[in-house]
């Protein structure tokens, strides 16, 4: 019994950690750079499908199935999603700030259509199955299998976390923060905001693609339904709750929100009669929407949000003058 619970806990945390990876990617775009991406689901989906095509066994009714090693699939996923983000960013980042948001919204709609209609590439509404899972030979032993997969996710998240923390402290990260806080001053120092923003947007998109691949291999099966706009909302809720600009907050927010989501979904399916479940599920989504707005109103920096260096400086300067 306890072993079952342990196996389930490992499964649950692995799933939460795949969201944490998406959240880290979004943090590069929004937290570090202030770029608003409404098409997260699209970048995750592109990663998942790329990796699935590269690693699944050949299939007669669709393109590909190249049976490449899993890590090649992950790499391919990051590259493809990164390229897509670059293309979207190159087109819109130089324009008004919300054109990027509108364009990413369009990408989400279009990728959804492609998943459904490009049957020879994506398998259409039924998606792609038989995606190789890491440690497939351990599958008979549920506990060992879950723990091994959890370890992989934990290592990926930890590695990404350390890399991003390092990046944030590097000269590149400092320029990004400078641009976010005061674009004019950064420009006066000879930094080109558009180029840095585009790099950050591409990096964030690549991380989301990686997350999509990690999730696809963890579940072993993908379909267009996994990448509905609700995914985008969930990840935003995670980052806003955790605190934008803070990588630890992004990870904590992912685990917390995913936990709340899973708990409330379980509560809905136990306590609500079957014919009312769809309605109860829509209330769950209302809660996410309202929660997102309330966080923005009351605690825009999230639970663990970063205090902007300029505000800190201002409050330091303001404090002595009050006396």
């Amino acid at each position: 019994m306890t072993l079952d619970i342990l196996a389930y806990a490992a499964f649950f945390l692995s799933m939460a950690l795949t969201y944490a990876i998406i959240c880290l990617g979004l943090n590069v775009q929004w937290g570090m750079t202030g770029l608003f991406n409404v098409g997260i689901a699209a970048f995750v989906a592109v990663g998942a499908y790329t990796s699935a095509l590269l690693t699944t066994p050949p299939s007669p009714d669709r393109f590909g199935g190249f049976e490449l090693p899993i890590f090649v699939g992950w790499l391919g996923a990051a590259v493809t999603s990164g390229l897509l983000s670059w293309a979207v960013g190159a087109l819109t980042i130089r324009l008004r700030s919300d054109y990027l948001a509108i364009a990413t919204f369009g990408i989400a709609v279009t990728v959804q259509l492609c998943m459904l209609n490009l049957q020879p590439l994506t398998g259409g509404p039924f998606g792609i199955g038989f995606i190789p899972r890491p440690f497939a030979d351990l599958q008979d032993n549920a506990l060992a299998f879950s723990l091994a997969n959890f370890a992989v996710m934990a290592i990926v998240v930890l590695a990404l976390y350390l890399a991003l923390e390092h990046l944030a402290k590097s000269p590149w990260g400092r320029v990004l923060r400078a641009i976010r806080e005061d674009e004019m001053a950064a420009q006066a120092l000879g930094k080109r905001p558009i180029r840095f923003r585009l790099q950050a947007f591409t990096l964030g998109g690549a991380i989301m693609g990686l997350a999509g691949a990690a999730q696809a291999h963890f579940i072993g099966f993908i379909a267009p339904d996994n990448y509905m706009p609700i995914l985008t909302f969930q990840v935003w809720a995670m980052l806003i709750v955790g605190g934008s600009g803070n990588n630890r907050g992004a990870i904590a927010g992912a685990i917390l929100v995913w936990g709340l989501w899973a708990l409330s979904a379980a509560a809905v399916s136990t306590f609500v009669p079957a014919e009312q479940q769809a309605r109860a599920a829509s209330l769950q989504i209302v809660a996410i929407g309202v929660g997102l707005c309330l966080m923005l109103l009351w605690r825009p920096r999230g639970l663990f949000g970063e205090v902007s260096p300029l505000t800190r400086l201002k409050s330091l300067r303001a404090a002595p003058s009050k006396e």
Partner: protein
Amino acid sequence: MNPQFIMDGLIAGAIIGLGAVGVTLTYSILRFSNFAHGELLSWGAYLALAVAGALGFLSAGLTKPIAPFSFGWALPISAVIAIGLTGLLALAVDALLFSSFRRRGSAIIIMVMASFGASLALRSLLEFLFTSKPAYFTKALQIAMKLGGGLRATPDQLLMLGVALVAVVTVHLLMTRTDIGRAMRAVSENPALASIAGIDVRRVIRTVWFLGAALACVAGIMSGLLIQIRPYLGHDLLLPLFAAAILGGIGSVPGAMLAGLIIGLCEALAVQAVGAEWRAAVSFVILIAVLLVRPRGLFGKAS
């Protein structure tokens, strides 16, 4: 090729155009792209449905179709009430959410994000209240009339095209010939200067919300009457609305309507030429083309 696509395109385009006028007004005066605008269309349609249902309950005579149309007096009366209610809804959302961001001088992108959260909440609330099952104003079937040149249209469709035309001309006259219209254009040019000149900026903002919501309600009712009412009605139109607002040029009312018609016609053409499953991609292609070639749109001012 069957010329009927022109009729289908004009109807879809009129719905998109009415919605896009609201988007372009909020964008140029409140200065953010409102992702919750699509939800105003859905709410407008459902509010009209609820009021029409209540009216039909009070007096069965109101549901008797007015020849040659498929609906009774209940619909026009409930449409007027729903327009008011949708306007109030927009004002309430502004008072609860966006006004406090404006007061704090928050970044534009925070408002965009808040509108994103609001759209999610509003849409799922509709799904909760009315379930996701499609609803209809009327179950009556209409026979399409021949208009010549191979075109056919039902009386409902022709009436709705007329309503859309009247609505847009009214808004255009309001913007160009009245004091509040001049005040709106002044605020869109420069809010600080406008308020120094004695313009009540808050009143302008309230007018913009009400006007945008009223047009959205009309578009929602049109879409509900001619197609069907679903909670996702507005969400599925959001991308065409944005594409039309940008193609027409932010701030231009005739531009938004014209761009809406262009997008509707392109969609109908694509349905015939490529297939109905790619319809939703049309506005994305147009959006990308506009951003590449002429980001300020057809009638927009260079920023």
